């Protein structure tokens, strides 16, 4: 992120940043007058002190009271010794290292009698209690959003509810400090446009995503996942407008893959599709809040869902790639192995498939097929996709038998095919069904080619798996979309 206030220039010569509270700074205090001997004509020794303007006592010092010098020159440790030539830093060392200080100053006898090295102390500019305020002060104008002032006597949570900013649950107040901290989670500029957000078709900036990610409870390391999921959802293929506007109970279901899922603390194990994990819950929630607040998609307005489903608060989980008998979903969808990626799927709430007696993959496939047949209606075919989430206890059967993803999907499709006469309108006493004209076709598939997605998640015991039924697919509705997560 680019600072909005230009860094104060450092004078040519030697620059030292210290604070009294640091024992290593006290150690080098007697050496500082000797540094004058290392200066060429036109160069100077400049000592910046962070805490006590009277320190060091051995040379005059400039009080870096607002820590602007320390912040802008990325001083993380004191003492820091910097060599500046022609206005540019050419070398620096941190803490006390006799070898480094002698090399940079050219004074071979500097610090004789001192230990060879001593680690420095934390710079005040990276003090956890100060860093957010400093970031806001020095880079604050890099965010452009309107400021909303909440009066001292006003409850900020009630104020946010009243403005319609929440999903019905409390949100974290998006202060400038919090938003700037969130923005440290990406290398992208706040003004970068992530996508055009439906339904209002407005340009969605990294900054607006960050604000909503703060509200959702995300950590900075979650932000790239939120951005990738929004990039995927706001495509013509995924058709977020339609997913919102439909009367069916669907929302973006986010399946996350790659080593980053563990790095940011996502859950792929026990209760992976449920509550209790901050990354899972807040990433999915941030996507929904962004669509609500930036896209303008609110229930009862553009969102016309008859029932909706609780997953529209957040529905996001990671695949258990290490335990899976299958290749990762992202890899099956074209992302190279080992990369972080999200797949968005327009799905309804999860439904449990129980089979505690199957001991062969064929038996379990028969159970899966019988349950998958009921997706939206047992007589409706091809028009809806589904996501099958296989559990560890069920997955073991496929692993032991050597069934990969392609084999499982092929076995399911074979068991799901039915003749047209079973599916036409009126058959089996049900008006719903496919048109009469398909009556004589001997075999029709339940799912279109590629319409059955398989993921692996869950943990602990349980001979159960889960089905997430999709929405109208293809050009008529939504296709699953996979995007790599980038920093």
């Amino acid at each position, binding site marked *: 992120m680019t600072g909005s206030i230009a860094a104060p220039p450092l004078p040519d010569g030697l620059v030292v940043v210290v604070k009294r509270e640091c024992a290593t700074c006290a150690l080098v205090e007697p050496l500082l007058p000797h540094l004058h001997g290392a200066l060429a004509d036109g160069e100077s020794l400049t000592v910046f002190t962070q805490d006590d303007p009277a320190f060091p006592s051995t040379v005059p010092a400039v009080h870096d009271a607002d820590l602007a010098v320390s912040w802008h020159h990325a001083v993380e440790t004191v003492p820091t010794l910097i060599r500046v030539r022609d206005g540019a830093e050419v070398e620096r060392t941190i803490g006390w290292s006799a070898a480094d200080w002698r090399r940079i100053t050219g004074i071979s006898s500097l610090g004789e009698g001192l230990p060879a090295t001593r680690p420095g102390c934390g710079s005040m500019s990276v003090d956890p209690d100060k860093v957010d305020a400093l970031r806001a002060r020095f880079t604050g104008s890099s965010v452009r*959003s309107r400021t*909303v002032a909440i009066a001292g006597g006003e409850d900020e949570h009630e104020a946010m509810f009243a403005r319609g900013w929440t999903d019905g649950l409390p949100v974290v107040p998006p202060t400038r400090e919090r938003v700037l901290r969130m923005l440290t989670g990406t290398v992208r500029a706040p003004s970068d446009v992530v996508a055009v957000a439906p339904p209002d078709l407005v340009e969605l900036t990294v900054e607006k995503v960050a604000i909503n990610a703060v509200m959702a409870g995300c950590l900075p390391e979650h932000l790239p996942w939120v951005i990738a999921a929004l990039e995927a959802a706001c495509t013509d293929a995924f058709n977020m407008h339609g997913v919102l506007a439909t009367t069916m109970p669907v929302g973006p279901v986010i399946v996350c893959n790659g080593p980053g899922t563990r790095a940011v603390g996502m859950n792929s194990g026990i209760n992976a599709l449920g509550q209790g994990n901050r990354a899972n819950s807040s990433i999915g929630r941030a996507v929904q809040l962004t669509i609500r607040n930036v896209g303008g998609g609110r229930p009862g307005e553009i969102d016309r869902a008859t029932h909706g489903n609780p997953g529209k608060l957040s529905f996001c989980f990671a695949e258990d790639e290490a335990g899976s008998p299958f290749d990762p979903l992202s890899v099956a969808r074209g992302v190279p192995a080992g990369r972080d990626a999200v797949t968005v799927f327009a799905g309804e709430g999860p439904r449990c498939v129980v089979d505690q007696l199957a001991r062969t993959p064929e038996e379990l496939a028969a159970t899966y097929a019988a349950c998958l047949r009921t997706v939206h209606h047992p007589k409706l075919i091809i028009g809806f996709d589904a996501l099958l989430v296989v559990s560890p206890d069920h997955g073991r059967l496929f692993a032991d038998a050597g069934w990969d993803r392609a084999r499982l999907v092929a076995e399911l499709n074979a068991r799901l095919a039915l003749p047209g006469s079973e599916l036409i309108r009126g058959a089996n006493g049900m008006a719903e069904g496919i048109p009469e004209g398909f009556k004589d076709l001997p075999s029709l598939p339940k799912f279109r080619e590629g319409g059955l997605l398989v993921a692996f998640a869950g943990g602990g015991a349980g001979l159960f798996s889960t089905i997430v039924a999709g929405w109208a697919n293809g*050009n008529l509705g939504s296709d699953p979309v996979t995007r790599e997560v980038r920093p």
Partner: protein
Amino acid sequence: MELLDPTNESRPATRPLRERPASLDGLTVGLLDISKPRGDVFLGRIAHLLEQRGARIVRYTKPTFSKPAPVDLRHEIATTCNVVIEALAD
């Protein structure tokens, strides 16, 4: 406390509704089928009834009910028709 606005900060333009025409006689009525099943049946009946009242009918179809009408289609309807009826059916 100061918060950053999480919304798109836009204020949609509000335009007053046009007066209802007193009569459809001689007006061009656009009928937009959003491609829901049997919407065409419903609009076919509407077209028949309106033509009896002297309206000129122009039929349009959205590619799919699940996405907004393309900009070009909206422009064509706006520049061709005096009145438009959009049908949702199932």
